[in-house]
Structure formats: C-alpha cells, structure tokens
C-alpha cells in the first residue's frame, strides 16, 4: 500500500491528531533550533552562547518568546493597519502548512490505526510546498509595504526578489527528481529511493543546487540580504515589535526546518535508514523511522548553522547574478542531460547511453576549455585598456590643491 492509500483510510479524528502533532513538532523544533543555533554559533566563535535559562540554557527561546509577548505592540502611524497585522499571520501560517506533506515515518500504528506520519499525500505534493513558500513571500512583501517606511520596503522588495529568483533554481533542481522518481508526491519519491542510491548521489548537481537555493529561499546567511543590518536596519520587519515580530521569527525558522525536511524527502531518502541499517526500520513498530527522518532534518539544520558561522554575507548584485546566470542555466542544461539519459535508459541500448554520456563529458570539457581561453583573452584586453581623459571638468582629488589662497592681510 502506498502512503496515499494508507492516509486515505484515516478517520477524521486521526487527521486532527496528526495536525496537532505536526504543529507541536514544528513549534518545539523551532524553539530548540533557535537555542541550538545560538549555542553552536557561540561554540564556533570560542564562546558559550546562552546557558543561563534552564539546563544548558534550553529554555532560552521560551523565555525570549515570553519576553516578546509581553513587549509593547507598536503599529506605526504611517502603517496600513489591516495589512500590517495580517502580514505576519500570512508568513507564519504559510510556514506551518508545508509540513503537511512531509512523510516523517514509514507504516506505523497510531492510536490503533495503521497509518504514516504524514498529514496528506498530494499527487503534486512538492509543487504544493513550492506554492506555499510563494504564499509566504506575500507576508514579507506586505509587511515591507504596509510598514509605511523606507527600509522595510527595500527589505521586503529584496526579500521577495530573492525568494522568487531562488525558487526558480530550486524548482528546476526538483525537475530531475521528478524525472527519476516519476512522481511529484513526496511519499512516492521517498518510496522510489528505497533500496537504491539516494537522489543526492544519483542527481548530485541537482542536490548541490537545491542546497544552495535553500539558503536563498529561507533568507539565511550568506544570503540574508533582506536583513542586512548594515544596509537595511532589519529589513522587512524593522517596524514590527512584540508578538508580530515573534511570528516573523517563528516563520523564518519553521521555513528552515520545512525546507530541510523537503531536502531530506527528495534527496536523502526520507525516513529510510542509512544504507546497511535497514533492519532498524522495523524497531518500535516502525516508529524508529522517525529517528532517521529527524536525524537527517536536524543534520541539515546543523549545516544551516555551520554555514552561517562560516561564510560572510555576499553582495546583492553578485547574489542575483549567481542565481540567474549560474544556477538556472546550469540547471537547465543538467535537466536536459538527465531527461535524455532517462529516456535512453528506458528505450534504447546501453551503448547508446554510454555514447551519449561520453558526448556530454566531451562537450563539458570543450566548454570549460573555451571559457578559460576567453577569460585569458579578457584579462589581456583589460590590461591594455586605458581610460580616456574626461573632456569635462572634474573635481580635484583631495590631495591636490584646487586654488591658492591669497593672504589679504
């Protein structure tokens, strides 16, 4: 039985229970993630991080949440009140929704019902996640616009441009997964990877592009340009305070967990164990698969933190250039290669496939060679270039005196 068939048999109360569990899981994970991020970043910077509230500072995020809730809720006089209040709710709501299609366990028994820990298995589950992520962008754009202030507006625009651009790269890297698994349903993609090489290995370039665009998609360092404090104060949520700010914060971190869960599902074999440890999947009546799922998701979350601790923020134009001129074209070529290989492997002989792969490698080498040559040429051209003297008056450099001061006594 596939996941979709299992879920179809769920009674209404079980669906409600699962929704509750997913909600609680997301909240608790976010609280722990914020704590873990601050601790791990601290450790990476030779300090301890928050260790005062509760054992090892575990309750730090809870205390911060309470503090946030007790703070004064300010709505600027220039703000569009309705939209201003609505924006964080849209952001946070959309963030929670993408968890609905993540398969967290294999077949388990929950309250006497045979099911899987997945709220629903849509035939277009992955597209649903992308769509929900786009709805989340509305929260950001509306927040920036409704604040009635310059920095939030700029931050909101940056953020939306960024999320939309990197969603294209992300969506394209998912295409090869669809081609290989023959499905867009998250449950079936996980099932298609079972017992084979994970797509992270088979479709390695797609995996790399997905991981890079994860950071762009979630506004995280080194792509956290929407919140570049040196340029934009705090970006789109500059004017937000109290619980509304907390909602944005929550949404950001839920998005990170959700996008890690999607990565796990699509590229890292979902809830299945690591190769060679398949026997563990039947432990605890199948519930042990949740451990593998969480281990992979949290591993990716750790990677998010690690990258934040290592890489500096990049410039906005470089960031956009990278997205549109590198990731997307490369992705398109890669999809063509994958599609052709797939069709060849299904319809023709092995020889045709090998020949095609050889041609691709040769083309890649030729392209790389031509690129190097053109770069060398450009370097030579750059050396010869001498800027012509401007034929209009220019202000003098500060080291050159502009005029002599005559002492008049």
């Amino acid at each position, binding site marked *: 039985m596939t996941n979709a068939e299992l879920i179809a048999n769920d009674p209404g109360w079980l669906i409600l229970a699962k929704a509750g569990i997913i909600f609680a899981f997301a909240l608790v994970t976010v609280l722990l993630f914020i704590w873990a991020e601050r601790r*791990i970043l601290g450790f*990476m910077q030779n300090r301890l991080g928050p260790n005062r509230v509760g054992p090892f500072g575990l309750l730090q995020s809870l205390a911060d949440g309470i503090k946030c809730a007790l703070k004064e809720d300010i709505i600027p006089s220039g703000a569009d009140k309705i939209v201003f209040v609505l924006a964080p709710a849209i952001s946070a709501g959309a963030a929670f929704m993408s968890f609905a299609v993540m398969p967290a366990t294999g077949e388990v028994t929950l309250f006497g019902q045979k099911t899987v820990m997945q709220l629903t298995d849509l035939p277009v589950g992955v597209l649903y996640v992308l769509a929900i992520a786009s709805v989340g962008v509305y929260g950001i754009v509306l927040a920036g616009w409704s604040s009635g202030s310059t920095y939030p507006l700029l931050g909101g625009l940056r953020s939306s441009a960024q999320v939309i651009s990197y969603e294209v790269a992300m969506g394209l890297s998912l295409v090869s997964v669809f081609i290989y698994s023959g499905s867009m349903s998250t449950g079936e993609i996980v099932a298609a990877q079972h017992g084979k090489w994970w797509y992270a290995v088979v479709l390695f370039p797609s995996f790399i592009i997905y991981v890079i665009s994860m950071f762009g998609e979630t506004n995280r360092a080194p792509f956290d340009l929407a919140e570049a404090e040196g340029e934009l104060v705090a970006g789109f949520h500059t004017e937000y305070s109290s619980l509304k700010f907390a909602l944005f914060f929550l949404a950001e971190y839920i998005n990170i967990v959700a996008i890690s869960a999607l990565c796990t599902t699509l590229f890292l074999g979902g809830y299945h164990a690591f190769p060679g440890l398949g026997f563990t999947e039947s432990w605890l009546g199948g519930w042990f698969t949740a451990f593998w799922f969480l281990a992979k998701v949290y591993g990716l979350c750790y990677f998010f933190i690690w990258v934040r601790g290592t890489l500096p923020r990049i410039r906005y134009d470089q960031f956009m250039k990278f997205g549109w001129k590198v990731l997307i074209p490369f992705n398109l070529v890669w999809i063509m290669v994958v599609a052709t290989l797939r069709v060849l492997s299904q319809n023709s002989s092995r020889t045709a496939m090998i020949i095609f792969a050889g041609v691709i490698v040769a083309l890649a080498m030729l392209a790389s060679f031509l690129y190097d040559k053109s770069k060398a040429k450009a370097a030579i051209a750059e050396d010869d270039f001498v800027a012509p003297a401007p034929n209009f008056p220019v202000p003098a450099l500060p*080291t050159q*005196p502009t005029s002599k*001061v005559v*002492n008049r006594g």
Partner: protein
Amino acid sequence: MANLEPKKNALANTEAVPVENTGPASLLQQAKGFWVTFSKQFQKKLTYNYPEEKPPVEPRFHGRHQLNRHPDGLEKCIGCELCAWACPADAIYVEGESNTEAERFSPGERYGKVYQINYLRCIFCGLCVEACPTRALTMTNEYELADDSRTKLIFEKEDLLAPLRQGMLQPPHPMYPGMDETNYYRGDVKQAHSSQESK
C-alpha cells in the same frame, strides 16, 4: 597663511600597489574555512561564567580604595586632603581633625575625621594614591561596585578602612610607648603593645 599643500606623511609617499583580483578561492581553501569553524566547537571556550567563576585581575588593577593602618592598628591617614586635591573627578571629601591624648586615631598631630569617596564620580585613575604622603590610601582589586542607590555608592571611612589584623588594636588608643610618628613612618612599630590597650 593657510597651508593647502597636502600633508607629507609616510602614506602619501607610498606608491599604490594594484591588488590583483584573484577571484573565488579554490574549493580546498573554502573547505578549510569550514574546518576552522567546525574545529573551534571542540576547543576550550574563552568565556568566564562570571558570577560563578571570577576571573583573576592583574595585581595592579585599580579597584576600590582602602585606608591602611599601622601595624598596631592606628590609622595611617593624617587628614592632609592631598588626595582630595589630586582627584581630577572631585570624588574625595576629607575633613581633618586634631588628635588628642584622650582620643588618638593616628600617630602625630592630625587624623582624617571624615573620609568619603564617591564612586559615582571616581574614575579609578589612582592619582590620589600617588598623592598620599603616608601610603594610607591604596587600591584593592575589588571591582564589584554596583549598587541600587546613589547614597550607597558614597563610601564612608568605615567602609574604606582596612580590617584589623593580628596584633592590631581598634583605635582610638595611645601611640606605642617610646615611639613617635617618625618611628611609625619608618615602620619601627611591628605590633601593638599591651600598654596601648584601653582600660
């Protein structure tokens, strides 16, 4: 006349060297960066858990002041106000008074009757310590001086006086028999004499 010539300094004479744009670092070098942050996690942390573990300060650290005593318990302060005059922040207030045979606080003629240091004003520069002619005023290593009211941060003489140690007697009491203030100053008095005890 205003001199508009550019200032001659070492920087102006140095020829600018164009920096070569090397482009992105190699993958190995970038991996090295990741290794730095990863390995740092397992190294010893620099943080002190302050209220629980107090980091040792340098021996010459400028902390709270202390009014010292002679080895028999008499105060070293002679109420000369040099510390108050030396103080650039005007944090010290001293009122001197004459010692009498009945009530002697310090060897010699005068003693400090009122001695206040306002720690809201004090900048811990140590000029008062340099000014003190009898080494009565020194600084301790104590730095926890925060409090919740202004009056609590004006330290009185009782707060600043050094505690009585072995062989010291609580003044007022007479000087060591056969010694004058010069002997005290030279350090001839090693501890209190039984005749100094008040009846």
